[in-house]
């Protein structure tokens, strides 16, 4: 059974699945992260804030599992990349972790004590717990595309600020705005009345900045990263960035046409294409070294054995469709809009 697929083919499959997993994580947790970032700007009353919490209520935990899975797959399929990247990105990852911890706790704790001060504290943590991960994921992925200062031993020689250059910051802002639009489009589907119209208006207003930053990011990518070389070599792959641009415009068009579900789907498609554009651009490397190209780590060097990749592929092929089926069932189950009335239930956050 182990020789059905060659090691090289398995490595390419897993590299693409790796990119796909991150994309799924961004799409799913993206709306939670975006909504949390918008919390102070969209919600005026306690009920409105609670509607925003509950619009993420049944999903945020399941969405975060995609992060655990993306991390786990990095560890399993590309252990060397996992080791080098995670130790290199020590500070940003730990800050990300603390932010996610505070986010989870703010969901669970906020409504347990009926006191405005208590709630205010958790609202601040909810905002930070969503804004900071969005920013750091952007900075980290921009750093990944650009290359990180690792030496011949795969040891990080930079400091905390090495990633915070112009391109890294641009990546961070790009992710924050992209997630915010995604979150606003989600809230547009999950709320009613004035809050919903505020969410819609917000998505409208943020679209132009998003388009501007996305274009700036794509242009800067040409100057700061080697990502485009594979697209120049294999022009057919150019369809991915092209699709990203189409999806970006589709968000606007669908929003204007009042097709709110399609607008959200376009935003998801946009995030998928952006992620795949970056990940595929890295091939055949999985970690660029900004010190010397020779210190970069290729997909082949980083990967696990053929047997492990085969077993994991079997597990993924059997389990992931099942996961997708029951997760979509849950999305459908809780599809109705969160209203002030539904906050009366004693299970609501």
């Amino acid at each position, binding site marked *: 059974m182990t020789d059905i697929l060659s090691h090289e083919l398995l490595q390419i499959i897993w590299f693409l699945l790796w990119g796909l997993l991150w994309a799924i994580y961004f799409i799913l947790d993206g709306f939670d992260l975006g909504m949390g970032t918008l919390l102070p700007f969209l919600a005026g009353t306690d009920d409105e804030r609670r509607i925003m919490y509950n619009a993420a209520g049944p999903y945020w*935990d*399941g969405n*975060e599992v995609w992060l655990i899975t993306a991390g786990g797959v990095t560890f*399993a*399929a590309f252990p060397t990349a996992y080791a080098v990247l995670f130790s290199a990105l020590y500070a940003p990852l730990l800050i990300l972790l603390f932010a996610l911890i505070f986010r989870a706790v703010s969901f669970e704790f906020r409504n347990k004590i009926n006191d405005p001060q208590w709630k205010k504290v958790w609202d601040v943590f909810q905002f930070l717990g969503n804004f900071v991960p969005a920013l750091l994921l952007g900075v980290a992925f921009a750093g990944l595309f650009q290359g990180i200062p690792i030496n011949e031993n795969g040891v990080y020689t930079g400091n905390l600020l090495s990633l915070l250059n112009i391109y890294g910051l641009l990546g961070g802002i790009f992710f924050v705005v992209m997630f915010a639009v995604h979150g606003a489009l989600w809230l547009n589907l999950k709320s009613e009345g004035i809050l919903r119209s505020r969410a819609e208006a917000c998505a409208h207003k943020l679209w132009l900045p998003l388009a501007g930053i996305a274009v700036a990011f794509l242009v800067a990518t040409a100057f700061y990263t080697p990502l485009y070389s594979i697209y120049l070599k294999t022009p057919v792959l150019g369809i991915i960035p092209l699709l990203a641009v189409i999806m970006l415009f589709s968000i606007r068009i669908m929003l204007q046409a009042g097709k709110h579900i399609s607008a959200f789907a376009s935003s998801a498609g946009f995030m998928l294409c952006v992620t795949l554009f970056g990940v595929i651009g890295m091939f055949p490397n999985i970690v660029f070294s900004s010190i010397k190209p020779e210190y970069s780590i290729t997909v082949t060097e980083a990967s*696990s054995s053929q047997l492990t990749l085969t077993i994991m592929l079997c597990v993924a092929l059997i*389990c992931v469709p099942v996961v997708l089926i029951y997760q979509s069932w849950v999305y459908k189950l809780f599809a109705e809009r969160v209203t002030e009335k539904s906050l009366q239930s004693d299970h*609501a956050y």
Partner: protein
Amino acid sequence: MDVVMLSRLQFAVTVFFHFIFVPLTLGLSVLLAVMETLYVRSGNEQYKRMAKFWGKLFLINFALGVVTGISLEFQFGTNWANYSKGVGDIFGSILAIEATLAFFLESTFIAVWHFGWDKVSKKVHCFAIWAVAFASNLSALWIIIANGWMQNPVGSEFVNGKAVLIDFWTVISNPFAWSQYAHTILGAWLLAGFFVLGISALHLVRNNEKDFFDRSFKLAATWTLILAVALPLQGHSHGVTVTKYQPAKLAAMESHWESTKSAPLYLLVFPDEKNRRNYFEALPVPGMLSFLAYGDTQAEVAGLNQIGASDFAEFAAKTGYKADAPVVVMADGEKIIRPLKPEDAIPPVLPTFLSFRLMIGLAAVFFVLAVVAWLRRKDIGEHPKIARALAWAIPLPYICLMAGWTVAEVGRQPWIVNKTMLTVQGISAVPASSVALSLAAFIVVYGCLGVLDIWLLRKYAMRGPEPAGHVAGVA
């Protein structure tokens, strides 16, 4: 402190904190599933109220368990990069499978259960909590298969410092892992039993919601008694498994220094680690240690002074160990060298020895408490002293489980992968100052969150269930 010690401390702090929340999730999920099944079967609303009340406590506990788990997964990469690089082929794939098989199931169905009371049928709702119970106990299985491989690395070979998977089935059927899994699960379920017993007893003494807490108490009393009997029996069998695969750990648990045939079990003994002997050994039970370890009073039990050298020889032959080679080279070129002498290839004896005794002592206490609780299951409300003792006993299983894991993990030292990779060889080339900072942050943040969470748990536990017939209300 150097980066090795700081990284180890950080892992210890974060894993112990994580394990405050996990065992209650493992055990209480099953109890909730039983309560809700009783509700679906009998139609008695009281069981629904029980599932809701204990479920609320379950959810307060659950959230922190989830997020503190992510910091463990991340730490393998951030702080144990060399380990991750070396074992990703096996250890990493098991973690990925754990997430795919268990975490998705758990997180999705907990949402159905939490938010779905009015959205799905009774049976589907009951199925959701069974799915959560199954998934959380399944995730424990996978993580312990991963840990079991560190304790007893089967199904793989080491090539140039990297583990390569040879036989997946051997890895997942690792007898050490299954024994340790059974031990952990029984302990976690026992902990949940005492949690329900203690809180119910306090309410019964106050004559609050008598029928409600009577039912809770009776259910938990039977559950806890079964576990308090099963745990020591399985614990003995786990001890035999440990002896088989990790004789050094057993010797450290018993502070047994010299290989002896027909080894006695000393009832009074205290290790003198520095001089590699015991300060005193008194009240021997002849042949008992041999009997407990091997089921034969004549068997030879290996002592620490002999095991260290032989384990080291095995390790050196397998990996070509060079004591003067740096375990890691930092970004600034600093080489971290931690040579290991053959005689030092043994675990720290005192913490292993004391944790083991603490665990055994508490197990005896649990047995007594479980019997008393069961005998008083019908009239615990009239015995305030016993009730209060049960409430005060709630933290004890937590302490017991942590002591048990201390035996398992400190007793595995100096290896990160038994006789194959040294713990020091696993670290990342991250500056000690970064680790010190993150460790401090973990202690402060976890400290605050832990206090808050326990305070909230206590508050909601003491408030008791919502009045019967209650339909909606804002907390």
